[in-house]
């Protein structure tokens, strides 16, 4: 069965220079292992293909049942240089929540 991340997680994002960060937080502890397994750095890089021009790093925060992603080269130079509406990556988080992941079980 597939679920949209929006239904099992929430998120907030911000910036450091040309890098956007996305903190992805499981809505319930039972979803955290699923996020760890399915929402890999490689998967996130594929999800944002064409929107970022650098690598994706992932860090785990099991204590907060959260994953932190760094999306490098995401902000057209970032801060004041960027020509983007979302120059500070404030809503990158919501774009990640569009991702669908396999949550197991029958459909």
């Amino acid at each position, binding site marked *: 069965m597939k679920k949209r991340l929006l239904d099992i997680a*929430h*998120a*907030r*994002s*911000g*910036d*450091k*220079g*040309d890098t956007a*960060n996305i*903190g992805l*937080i499981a*809505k319930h502890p039972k979803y955290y292992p699923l996020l760890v397994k399915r929402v890999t750095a490689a998967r996130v890089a594929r*999800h*944002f293909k*064409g*929107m970022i021009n650098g690598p994706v790093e992932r*860090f*785990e*925060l*099991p*204590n*907060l049942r*959260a994953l*932190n992603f*760094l999306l490098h080269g995401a902000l*057209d*130079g*970032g*801060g*004041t*240089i960027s*020509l*983007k*509406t*979302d120059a500070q990556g404030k*809503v*990158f*988080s*919501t*774009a990640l929540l*569009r991702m669908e992941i396999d949550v197991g079980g029958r459909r």
Partner: protein
Amino acid sequence: MRSANHPATVRVAGGQGFWGDWLEAPYRQVTGGPVEYLMMDYLAEVTMSILQKQKSRDASRGYATDFITQMERILPTVVERGIKVTANAGGVNPRACAMAVADVARKLGLGGKLKIGVVTGDDLLGRLDGLIARGHDLKNLDTGRPLHDVRDRVLSANAYLGAAPVVEALQRGAQVVITGRVTDTGLTLGPLMHAFGWAVDAWDRIAAGTVAGHIIECGAQASGGNCLSNWKTIPDLANVGYPIVEAHADGTFDLVKHPKTGGRIDVAGVTEQLVYEMGDPRAYITPDGVADFTTIQLDQTGKDRVRVSGIKGKPATDKLKVSIAYFYGYKAVGTLVYVWPDALEKAKAADRILRQRLQDLGLAFEAIHTEFVGANATHGPLALKGLDTTAIPEVQLRIGVRSPDKERVDRFTREIAPLILNGPPSVTGFAGGRPKPEEIVAYWPALIDKQMVKPMVEVVDA
């Protein structure tokens, strides 16, 4: 070690998350219930360059003027209740800011009742050539380039100071501590170190005070503002209560807000703020120490009350971060609104026509960036997957250019309006007129050896 002089609990209220935050918040924080400290963050990365420019025109300026208006409003309460204030409103001229606060205090009849601490030593602009000559090349942390490459365009350079000078000012009796580029977290950690007598190498406590500072430094973003988790059920944001750290000597703290205020403090919302602008969670580096965010435990211990505990820290590094601003070039962004039917197709056609004209004029840019607001501006191609784009009622074409050459950017701004009459149909929304070329002041993050920066503290009577 706790002595009889140290309180069991200390409350630090967050009053401003940035210069431009809600003007009502500081007053509500000092009057809405008991607090011992009010912290206010005013400095974003590029703010210092704006302030440096103001100071170069008028030596009595260069600080966050809103802070003076705020102090005029809250000083009577602050003095009456013995509340202490920490703020990095001093910008590039903390002394002038302190003088302005002293003037306000005297005007309010509070002369002689107030000591003001002034923290300086962060401003490296006048020392840059000396530092570079002595081998401190202030490499850009993102690109690795030495500062030498843009030296003649540097507008401001400030080392991030930590909590130590804030603690010193408080120990010397300052009730209002005005700083230059002190870290946002240092404005909360400083009061806690002072109140509880925490040692500078009590790394777990330093980390705990840093995490507390990180949570409240963005104002209401920790108490229901900009919170995605169950956002529709967050009560009464019109009356939102800004966050308050209720700290204990052992480094644990509760996050709360004043009674009878709106917003919400829950584990989900605090978690959102913890991950905001996060890098490697195991190493949140400040001048004061290194906090490990993977050790933080959150528990909902009451309505609008989250307990934060378990925080571990590591020793401080021997570097300080330096925030440098330099002149980069020019940019301009133009917009037009295209309307159904075929709103997106029309906007796309206009973009193609505009780009063709720029090319025909021989105008090359460092970057041209097009967004179709209402369709793909923030979610890119992800937004249009499976969407019937012919149903979109309106799309804003938003096109921007960037160049070191101001004239090119200016010429671009003259190519927007003609499209209204000589481009695709059903276009409107040009009431704002021709866009203006804007100067780009860019950010250059670097590191410097800690020993090269000496924070200075003065305490003056109002």
